[in-house]
């Protein structure tokens, strides 16, 4: 239904999330080096099919690169070279696969999928409509609170203070004030009551 640069982009978000979940569970069962390398090749083929540049692909795994290196180094001594490589590569494959889903799916589609997935939770008191409201309030709150945070930091810097408490208290009070203001605005428009 949505246009995208590749077949992977056009797949429904729900299908991709399900595939990611299945893939991450299935990967636990793969414990040989050829198996993990095959999985890595499969994910790399996915990146190629989605026409993602190697640089952008690297950006996906870069946050765990250092960690994987440390893990690999430490595990060589404990479990041997090949098992250590399997464990380390498994983390790389998982993170790369998740990155592939993130890169080929729009945030709005994922949010809609989460909301749809929450429908069966109605029985335990989860209201999907209210969940959507909370998510959009959170997204809209970030720039507002980032602005409050910046102003408090500037004021601190002007006074030469670098104290976590002196930063956090005014920012949290700012957040509470905003929550009250938003709540009144919602009530005035008859939303969510």
């Amino acid at each position, binding site marked *: 239904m949505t246009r995208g640069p590749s077949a992977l982009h056009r797949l429904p978000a729900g299908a991709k*999330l399900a595939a*990611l979940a299945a893939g*991450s569970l299935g990967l636990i069962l793969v414990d040989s080096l050829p198996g993990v390398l095959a999985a890595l090749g499969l994910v790399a083929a996915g990146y190629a099919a989605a026409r993602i540049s190697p640089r952008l692909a690297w950006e996906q795994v870069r*946050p*765990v690169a250092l*960690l994987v290196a*440390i*893990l690999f180094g430490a*595990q060589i001594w*404990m*479990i041997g070279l090949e098992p250590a490589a399997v464990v380390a590569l498994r*983390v790389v494959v*998982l*993170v790369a696969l*998740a*990155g592939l889903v*993130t890169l080929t799916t729009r*945030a709005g589609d*994922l*949010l809609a999928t*989460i909301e749809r997935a929450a429908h069966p939770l109605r029985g335990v008191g989860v209201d999907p409509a*209210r969940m959507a*409201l*909370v*998510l959009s*309030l*959170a*997204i809209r*709150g*970030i720039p*507002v*609170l*980032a602005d*409050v*945070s910046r102003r408090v930091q500037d004021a601190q810097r002007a006074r030469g203070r670098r104290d*976590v*408490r002196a*930063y*956090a*208290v*005014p*920012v*949290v*009070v*700012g*957040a*509470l*004030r*905003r*929550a*009250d*203001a*938003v*709540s*009144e605005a*919602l*009530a*005035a428009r008859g939303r*969510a*009551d």
Partner: protein
Amino acid sequence: MTESVTSTAPASTAPAPTRPAAVAAQVGTFAALIAVFGVAGTIPVPGLLVPVTLQTLAVMLAGALLGPRRGAAAVLTLLALAAVGLPVLSGGRGGLGVFVSPSAGYLLGWVVAAFVVGLLVDRSVGRRGRLAFWPVLVACLVGGIGALYAVAIPILALVTGMDLAAAALANIVYLPGDALKAVLAASVTVGVARAYPAVLTHRGF
């Protein structure tokens, strides 16, 4: 920052704390607050597996100031934003990868941590709405460290193939930082309650 009350609604002076709109506003705003704290206070320590951030401080604050259910809901909301790829986690991280990386347990642990902190702070908030430093500190230590590690360590072990003892040992490097954050969280909670007393009456289960 003081809002001028111009609303014509009868309850315009103070929104009732249990109204769904008030709850949605609190939960959404605190999810945003946790995101902002992650950007404001990243302290990268070379060689550590997870960056030391103020984000866990904000998680403890969510539980302490909003209560167990709303605090945990604020964390879940933040995680949903991270899952759809928004860079709301410290260091601008986001995307589904964070949920399959070795530090995924800390993210899930936050939900439990906020809930436990909120539950324990609930017991120390009197009907008069007073809050003392020490009970909040205990709540932050038990919830923000005890409950967090109880979730994070087994998942770290599972993802990396380490045994539980090794994972617990790898985790010890965070203990000083987390203990400091618990002290800060308690101090900030008491400071916020003093500066904005309505937070205690607006607090919900």
